[in-house]
């Protein structure tokens, strides 16, 4: 067999399984979702059509677009607060911890909570923040509050807190990786040139760690905006997010076309964010040798 024919054979042989899978389980479902988003809701389910009514409804009806903005806002806050907590930790690990062993243990310590059920961890916050929860008991005991407060639960604060909690590990990982890649002699060179640690951080380390920061924040933002567990557990009415909206359209509200339209919007937004994030990462990525 000719060499080049053999190569083509090889190539498509290897590709076949992933291609088929991607087509059946990724491509087709999205096409279906796309199609449904143009249908009309009709009792008991829906009828085929081609109309933009669902999309119009989402844009026009405040109960829908408010949910979308709220989700984006909460997700943005989560991404930021996770960043502010994760970055110092990652920095500490990479630059201040001398022993490789301790570094690994601490890194693992951040990853380990991911293994405890997400549901349980979110639920535990509910118990901590609630009226009879630990936080309130402590505050009353310490005399700071006269009686338990329901300030802490079922609002945006508890949502952001819980989601930040969940996403800190996911933010630490890419930042850690990015910081690790920075050659140590760059900081040494900076110091040698008379630049102190603070300026070195701002001018050298931070820019070089940007790809990791962007990756972590993108990941956190996209996944936090689409979360439906935390809203149900600790969100209350104030925490009703887009994923809950979608779920109800496919559940009780029986409005599959609308749900599909919502899903399409989310799909497009996430895709856009990922592409932008990719571009930023690539632009900020400098060959570290």
């Amino acid at each position: 067999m000719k060499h080049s024919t053999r190569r083509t054979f090889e190539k498509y042989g290897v590709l076949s399984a992933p291609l088929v899978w991607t087509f059946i389980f990724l491509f087709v479902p999205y096409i279906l979702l796309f199609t449904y988003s143009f249908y009309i809701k009709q009792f008991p389910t829906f009828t085929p059509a081609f109309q933009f009514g669902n999309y119009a409804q989402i844009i026009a009806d405040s109960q829908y677009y408010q949910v979308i903005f709220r989700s984006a806002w909460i997700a943005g806050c989560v991404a930021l607060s996770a960043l502010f907590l994760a970055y110092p930790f990652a920095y500490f690990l990479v630059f201040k911890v001398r022993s490789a062993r301790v570094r690994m243990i601490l890194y693992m310590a951040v990853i380990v909570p991911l293994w405890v059920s997400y549901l349980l961890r979110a639920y535990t916050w509910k118990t901590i923040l609630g009226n009879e929860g630990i936080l309130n008991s402590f505050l009353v005991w310490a005399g700071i509050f006269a009686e338990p407060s329901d300030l802490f639960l079922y609002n945006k604060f508890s949502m952001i807190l819980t989601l930040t909690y969940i996403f800190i590990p996911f933010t630490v990982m890419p930042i850690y990786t990015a910081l690790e890649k920075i050659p140590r002699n760059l900081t040494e060179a900076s110091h040698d040139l008379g630049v102190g640690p603070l300026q070195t951080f701002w001018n050298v380390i931070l820019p070089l760690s940007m790809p990791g920061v962007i990756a972590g924040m993108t990941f956190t933002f996209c996944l936090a905006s689409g979360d439906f567990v935390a809203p149900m557990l600790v969100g209350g009415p104030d925490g009703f997010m887009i994923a809950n909206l979608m779920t109800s359209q496919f559940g009780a509200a029986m409005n599959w076309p609308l749900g599909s339209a919502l899903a399409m919007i989310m799909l497009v937004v996430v895709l856009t964010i990922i592409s932008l994030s990719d571009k930023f990462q690539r632009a900020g990525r400098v060959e570290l040798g």
Partner: protein
Amino acid sequence: MRPIIRIEGVTKTFGSKVVAIQDVSLSINEGEFVTLLGPSGCGKTTILRMVAGFEMPDRGRIILGDEDVTDVPPYRRPLNMVFQDFALFPHMTIAQNINYGLKVKGIPKPQAKKAVEDVLKMVELVSESERRPNELSGGQRQRAALARALVHKPKVLLLDEPLSSLDANLRAQLRVELKHLHEKLGLTFLMVTHDQTEALVMADRVVLMQDGRIAQDGTPEQIYDHPASIYVANFIGTTNLFHGRVVAINGGDITISSGDQELIARPSLAVSGIGDDVAVCVRPEKARIVSPGTDSTNLNTMTVTVEELLYHGSSVRVQFRLKSDDLFLVDVPLATASDRDRLPKTGEEITVGFAPGNTTIFPWEERR
């Protein structure tokens, strides 16, 4: 001697712009030690990889023995390669590395075992056979890579810059060892290197490449003493060059006018007519300082000023400034104490000279 490898009219382009090899034809005879020499990017590694089967020519053929192997994958070609970074499998011991090729070919175990032992003895790595590659020194790894290739008794052994990752002393030692190995085994060796000393010491034939083409193909002596172009003259060793015009040809002599002097040089087939634009090349070790009172009628001489003395251990390279403002180099051997005493001082004006028979001329090229 019959050709064992024939590379015929091979062209290879990478991407849409980079032409790595331009219509190269080369013939390698059985038992020869041929070196492909040149700077990085000249195409020498590409040719080696095409012979091995890792690249395919866009045009042309590769023939091994009597068979056209252009389309044959590497695992079916009867040759073996020693890779530049040795490519020893890190997850196997040395013995397993050597045995690998025999295992995949299905050679029966007792036979394979004996072959591995024999080749380990030949490269003197018997005591390291159960170690892993990362536990060995650079020189030991090189021998292991050799052993792994040689256990198959290939007709041709390909070597991709086999000494480049070793330090200077080791390289000097292994150059000689490889040459002995070649003589002992009688195989054909095709080696790629950018180090001209390696090429000159080890090879029977040197193929010097330039930008995807062959600049010169000959024995080390031919390449060194009779370079075919300025590129070759400059790449191998160092050379002094004079730019001039042919003014007279009479029998065994050719007269060149360069600047304000006339030089007698040895004729060359490449230069035929009066008025031709030529380069006259003379190696530093072939030029001499002419002490006053010596008979210099048969030499080309010139008066120069000493600019710098560069100490090279066994010799001194004296750098002179010509009246034309070019540099002229003379290598003076330091065999005895009196040699050192007779060295000129910086700033002195001296006469240097060289015999016509020690020159080579070729057409002038305006390249840099």
